[in-house]
């Protein structure tokens, strides 16, 4: 019986996976998509201070998007004025990058800092160049 299982690789190659290869067209499609993502990179890159301002609004307690936007105005951060949609894009990206986490409470999405996010804020406040670099990279990442 075990012999049969040893034969499994050959068997599957000959049957289920016969002629099943990832074509060069498919590979090109992946490359295209990556190129597209790279060009998006330049379209909206956020200022370092903007990202930090957003992170700081949720530093002490979790907040929903509108509260974050109001707080940003109070902090004289007008980057998202008349362009609130971008804030949600950024929040979403930061969430994807696991800088922020979110929870739904009463049909509102509340954001808070993850451990990773806290590290970034702390690193920014310490202000060493090395860490600033990492944040710069985070922004590039965030706009992917």
């Amino acid at each position, binding site marked *: *019986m075990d012999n*049969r*299982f*040893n*034969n*499994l*690789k*050959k*068997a*599957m190659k*000959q*049957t*289920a*996976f016969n002629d*099943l*290869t*990832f*074509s060069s067209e*498919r*590979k090109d*499609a*992946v*490359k295209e*998509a*990556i190129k597209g*993502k*790279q060009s998006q*990179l330049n379209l909206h890159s956020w200022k370092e201070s903007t990202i930090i301002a957003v992170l700081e609004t949720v530093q002490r307690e979790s907040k929903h998007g509108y509260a974050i936007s109001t707080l940003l105005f109070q902090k004289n951060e007008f980057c998202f004025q008349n362009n609130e949609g971008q804030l949600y894009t950024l929040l979403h990206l930061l969430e994807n990058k696991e800088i922020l986490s979110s929870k739904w409470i009463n049909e509102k999405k509340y954001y808070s800092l993850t451990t*990773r996010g806290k*590290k970034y804020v702390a*690193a920014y406040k310490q202000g060493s160049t*090395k*860490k600033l*670099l*990492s944040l710069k*990279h*985070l922004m*590039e*990442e965030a706009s*992917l």
Partner: protein
Amino acid sequence: MSELEHLLVTEEDLDDKEQIIDQLMHEYSDDILHLVYTYVKNRVVAEDLTQEIFIKCYEKLDQFTRRSAIKTWAYRIACNHCKDYLRSWHYRKITLNEKILDYFPSKSVHVEEEIIAKNEEESLTQAVMNLPVKYREAVFLHYYEELPLAEISKVTSVNINTVKTRLKRAKELLKDMLIKEG
């Protein structure tokens, strides 16, 4: 803070990232496609998902910590992507409906296939593909990919002892299926 140090990458690395994905596709795209097919059992869907997996690898490349081989890391992304797909609304509502249609006698391509599937290779493959997904993935990674148990555990996020148990159980199931077939 090693994670932050790891993030100390400059823009030039973007080209590198592209190259890494190129390399990854060059070396493992067929293997990953086969892995995906094992989950979804449909060639076109498998190709679509594999495409998405490589894009995901590109997006997540910064999270690759080099603690494991890049192959293991990519396989893990592939596994998770497939499982997400099998859990998705689209799959559960649309694909499953199509599957139910397949069971009607008039559309019984599968039945015909089963009758034709006389030779040993085909019946063995068919038996594997008919296993429940948790056994199927273990069997594929162990017997086809020939990954060590520890790797399988990493790729599937399943405890190593559970992997062992599943392989054992899978063997029993396969035996039963093959015996029934005679």
